[in-house]
């Protein structure tokens, strides 16, 4: 300790100079627009590089788990293929493939790695290692094999900022696979990173625990039928006309490493049509 104090006393002039010079540079960066933006850009780049290194290390140590996950996904896809191959009704088989084919034509997919993710805030976001140069644009859906992840908010050349499903601003109409029902509003209540809630579901619907919740046909961001999670709790709303559901998410955001960005190929066409519709309604 004494050595440290002696060193500080010995270097006090240099330390004073560094301190005062640091104050000056701080002033320059705070009050000059160009220097401030340069500093912000540089620090963002610096932190993104740190995130990238951290993600690479996490990725390396999580390879075993990732392999297991891919093996599970392969198994699931293989069993789906088997189902189609063994289908006795050839007409149904063709229709089925047709619909799959059509569905796949509507969307293009871009693989990306998650380099930063938070789950403890009220409005959580993710950062992906792909950006506008890779074809990612705002308002594209982001999915993982276990379920939907979020929506792209902003992009830079090499990175994309994603509003995660664990965000107070995220809302979606869910689809109950067993009931073939599109109803309610899915949102995050901010309490549990593995759970979302569905409100405004009619009490008369026969919702049960364990039912699969998927994306609906109403969404323009996500292909229909993508998994979201399973119903884990059912409770009645205060006015007694609706039920509120807790849904356990398929995606574990704390371990999320790989995602797929969904590009809706006819999104512009759909938006133009909606605009025309709004104009016509306005004229009426």
């Amino acid at each position, binding site marked *: 300790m004494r050595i440290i104090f002696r060193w500080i006393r010995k270097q*006090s*002039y*240099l330390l*004073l*100079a560094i301190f*005062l*010079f640091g*104050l*000056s*540079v*701080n*002033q*320059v*960066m*705070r*009050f*000059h627009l*160009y*220097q401030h933006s*340069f500093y912000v850009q540089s620090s963002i780049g610096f932190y993104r590089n740190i995130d990238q290194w951290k993600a690479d290390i996490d990725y390396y140590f999580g390879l075993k788990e990732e392999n297991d996950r891919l093996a599970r996904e392969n198994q699931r896809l293989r069993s789906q293929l088997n189902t189609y191959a063994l289908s006795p009704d050839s007409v149904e088989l063709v229709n089925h493939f047709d619909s799959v084919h059509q569905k796949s034509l509507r969307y293009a997919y871009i693989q990306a790695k998650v380099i930063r993710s938070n789950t403890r805030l009220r409005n959580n976001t993710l950062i992906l290692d792909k950006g506008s140069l890779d074809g990612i644009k705002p308002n594209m859906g982001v999915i993982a094999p276990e379920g939907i992840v979020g929506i792209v908010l902003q992009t830079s050349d090499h990175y994309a900022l994603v509003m995660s499903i664990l965000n107070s601003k995220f809302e979606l109409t869910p689809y109950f696979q067993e009931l073939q029902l599109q109803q309610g509003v899915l949102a995050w209540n901010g309490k549990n990173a593995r759970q979302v809630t569905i409100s405004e579901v009619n009490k008369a619907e026969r919702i049960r625990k364990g039912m699969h919740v998927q994306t609906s046909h109403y969404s323009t961001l996500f292909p229909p039928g993508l998994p979201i999670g399973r119903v884990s709790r059912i409770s009645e709303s205060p006015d007694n006309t609706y039920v509120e559901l807790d849904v356990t998410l398929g995606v574990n955001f704390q371990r999320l490493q790989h995602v797929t960005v969904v590009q809706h190929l006819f999104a512009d066409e759909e938006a133009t049509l909606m605009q025309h519709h709004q104009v016509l309604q306005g004229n009426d």
Partner: protein
Amino acid sequence: MIEAIKYSIAAILLAFLQAYLIQEINMGVWLKPLPYVAIFFVLNVHSNRYAVMVAAFAFGFLIDLLSGSFGMHTGACVALAFFKNVYDRNWLDIDSITLQGQQYFSPEAKSWPAYLQYIGSLTFVHHLVFFSLDYFKADALFYILLTAFISTMGTIGISLLLRALFSSR
């Protein structure tokens, strides 16, 4: 004490001169003289280096306030005060200056080339820091060096002019 008051008045006058006169004169892209550095050339070589450092910070801050260039003059003055202390201790014969009965380095104490080298290096360090903070870009190193060099020439010219004016009085 009287010396400190004299320096303070001179510093305030130079700060106003810089902010309201010299800064307003357009002398081209490369020539931006900052003659207020002349006050550092006439500082007593036996002054407390800590006090000089703090005073340099306050002086630079005053010029920044008057000219709206927050931090740039302050940083350059702090760097100059630090470099002056290093120069005075390592390359200046302070004993010789004291024995000649002088308080600061002047051409009479040694020679004109030595004096020009002294004020030239101090001014160049100050200008280099100032223009580095101004351009704030590693790619602009050539322009920073060029502007610092040409402006150093201009500053030395004005400083010598000021010296001649005050010496004659």
